[in-house]
């Protein structure tokens, strides 16, 4: 695939050229704003590690559904929306300005592609497992890890199958355990008569579709047995939070303190309120996500089980339509498939990651799984991307 060629500008591809311009702008903004340096291409991390270090290493991946565009984030006029990322995280991070998603731009199927390292092609709104093995299955099978060591915290019921594939060599019982905080809340709130229907909506593109997973008892058991939370405490705390992603962070905090998994995948979704077309709500979503990303980072710094041995990777699943694309409606959707909708970024922070470096060569969304494999010491044999050299 030409995205892996050494030259970042594919002159044969106007889309890649545009993506490169986008990433170059992002890089210049970052260099001027945060004093970051420009990284060399294909330079392996000098912070080499032993196999033993890989075994002790923990990884937390944060993705968010509904990417935020440069003009609302990394461009100068967008900095006010991401003060925590700019101030607390970027100076400690390796930042990749050009992550290209060549798959279907729907949140579930795109996240499934991130998780498998293969561009999945199933119906975004179908409750089906990925067809290819997930990163969690590779991780657990190759490294012989228990189910308690790989977790997913996901925003909507549609993600309940994201933890493991239906691949015949992997599949049932070999993947990650999945927590759906909103569904936990529904179980805990059952019978309370509160107006929480909007909160439980499954996604912002189809706000009226909320698949019912059934089995309230199982959800309550998850709360009490694993997260050590009573339904009453959970309910009471939820009433102090302002959004579903805040609820997810609350669950993450409990999970980290009670279970301390080595591999944790968090998917946020508040930004995707943009589909409702209200720009101010989209900006609020970005600001909240910025704050929550920084809280995750601080949590990993503060928790003894994670401090000093955890790599944090943050990336949107894809972007959003550009204002200039007549086929879209600007920030509202990600339907046009244009460069802005396909191009996003990746931020990596951790003990083996270079700090304050910007890389502008293109990487592919499906490179994430092979990169995680190289970091953690497993072989994602069916993944189609390549490890990102600067991170491994």
């Amino acid at each position, binding site marked *: 695939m030409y995205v892996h060629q050494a030259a970042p500008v594919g002159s044969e591809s106007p889309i890649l050229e545009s993506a490169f311009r986008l990433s170059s702008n992002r890089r210049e903004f970052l260099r001027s704003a945060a004093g970051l340096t420009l990284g060399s291409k294909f330079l392996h991390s000098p912070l080499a590690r032993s196999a033993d270090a890989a075994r002790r290493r923990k990884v937390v991946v944060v993705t968010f559904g509904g990417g935020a565009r440069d003009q609302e984030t990394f461009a100068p006029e967008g900095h006010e929306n991401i003060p925590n990322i700019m101030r607390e995280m970027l100076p400690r991070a390796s930042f990749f300005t050009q992550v290209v998603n060549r*798959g279907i731009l729907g949140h579930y199927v795109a996240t499934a592609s991130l998780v498998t390292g293969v561009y999945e092609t199933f119906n975004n709104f179908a409750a089906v497992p990925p067809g290819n093995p997930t990163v969690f299955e590779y991780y657990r099978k190759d490294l012989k890890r228990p189910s308690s060591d790989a977790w997913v915290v996901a925003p909507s019921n549609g993600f309940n199958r994201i933890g493991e594939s239906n691949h015949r060599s992997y599949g049932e019982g070999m993947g990650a355990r999945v927590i759906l905080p909103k569904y936990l809340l529904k179980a805990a709130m059952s019978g309370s008569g509160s107006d929480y229907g909007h909160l439980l909506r499954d996604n912002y*593109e189809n706000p009226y579709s909320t698949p019912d997973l059934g089995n309230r008892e199982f959800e309550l058991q998850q709360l009490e047995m694993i997260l050590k939370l009573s339904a009453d405490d959970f309910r009471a705390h939820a009433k102090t939070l302002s959004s579903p992603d805040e609820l997810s962070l609350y669950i993450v905090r409990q999970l980290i303190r009670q279970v301390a998994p080595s591999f944790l995948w968090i998917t946020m979704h508040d930004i995707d309120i943009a589909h409702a077309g209200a*720009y101010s*709500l989209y900006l609020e979503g970005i600001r909240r996500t910025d704050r929550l990303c920084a809280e995750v980072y601080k949590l990993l710094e503060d928790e003894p089980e994670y401090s000093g041995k955890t790599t944090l990777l943050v990336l949107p699943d894809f972007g959003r339509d550009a204002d200039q694309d007549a086929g879209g409606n600007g920030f509202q959707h990600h339907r046009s498939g244009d460069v802005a909708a396909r191009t996003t970024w990746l931020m990596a922070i951790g003990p083996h990651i270079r700090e304050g470096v910007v890389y502008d060569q293109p990487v592919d969304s499906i490179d994430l799984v092979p990169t995680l494999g190289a970091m953690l010491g497993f072989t994602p044999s069916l993944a189609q991307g390549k490890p990102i050299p600067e991170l491994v």
Partner: protein
Amino acid sequence: MLPGDLKPEHFRLYPPVARKLVVENIRAIRRLPLSFLPSLLREIIEYDYKFPAERTAISKELANLGTVSDAEVEDLFREFSKIKLSSQLESFDWVNSPGQFVEQLSEHLWTTHQLDQFRIAATDYGEHLNGVVEAEPLPIPRLGISVVGRDVGSFDGLLFRKLRPHGTFFNRINPENGLNLLLEAVAARGRRHPIPYAHWYIDGGEPANYDSSLTGISYAALEPTRAALIAKIHSEIERPGMGPEALRSIMAQLRPSSLGMAGDDEILQRFQLKLLTEASGTQIFSTTYAQWAAREALRRAQPLTLLVRFASRQRQKAMNELLTVKAEQPEVDELGSLIDADMSAYYNWLNQQRLPGAEKSCFLAWFEGHASVLAIGPTIPRGAESGSEADLGKVLSWLV
């Protein structure tokens, strides 16, 4: 069935004017590839309910296709012909359900990684069409007006940030009687150039009194329709097996009468219905409704004059509020609405500039009740700021 097999009787279910048009041009459309033709049929099948500008565009496109040779058609649609379709798509009833076909084609293009190829083919064809089909000369330059911030007492932020590089920001404009001045100005254009659907007034709330020369729609007037639509959606999603695609199909089949819309102007009724059934957020937020209505009016009707007045939308409840008692009356979010409308004004200008005659088009954005005005036009300096004292009528006179 493939396009080459088309016969006049295949279009017997089309509305009368659309049927006549397609049968008259059947030789031309038989030559088109299946990856392209249903997109054209999706427009033709709605011909009877299209705005004049849309009808003209479709007729001209068909006329152009009728004049080109087989070799030229082959060359023009070469990239479309390379798109690989599935047997399910080929056997789909794309003649009578071209809209559903196009949705399935879109899904097919995404899953088979042919979307970029299709985008390039479509862009090239669009550019070709723009080159060979001449736009009608406009009787007057277009004028777009966006009125933002109704009911907002003050705002400390920077308004019209995205528009400022393209025009002059006036900070000492007398706001008195401003809305009436603007409405009278657009009405005068409507009276002088009484062209159907050429002069619009869209209000995100309760509309002000407006002249009958204007095509007027408002969020407030659609309240019963929105309530009926939301009730319909809720009843549908209770049905077993209902998913997003099925719901979308049901929405696409709704007619104005399904939701109790009444009136003589079926073209406008259908336009308003689509604003609610084909868009996201228009059913809930008035700012989204006003922006999307403006976008669609510009895209479809290509008006000479468009005044959009934004109102306050309902406030999005935080999670903790949703978990407590149900509020009887939704509160409004005035400041958030101003930010929404500010961005929407930029989109209104962008969408206006996509239309023919952009080099002469004019645009004005006003913070309602305040002294802040942004004006864009061929005679207005770009990126400038002015402390000139004037009223809105005077600013308009500088502009057009």
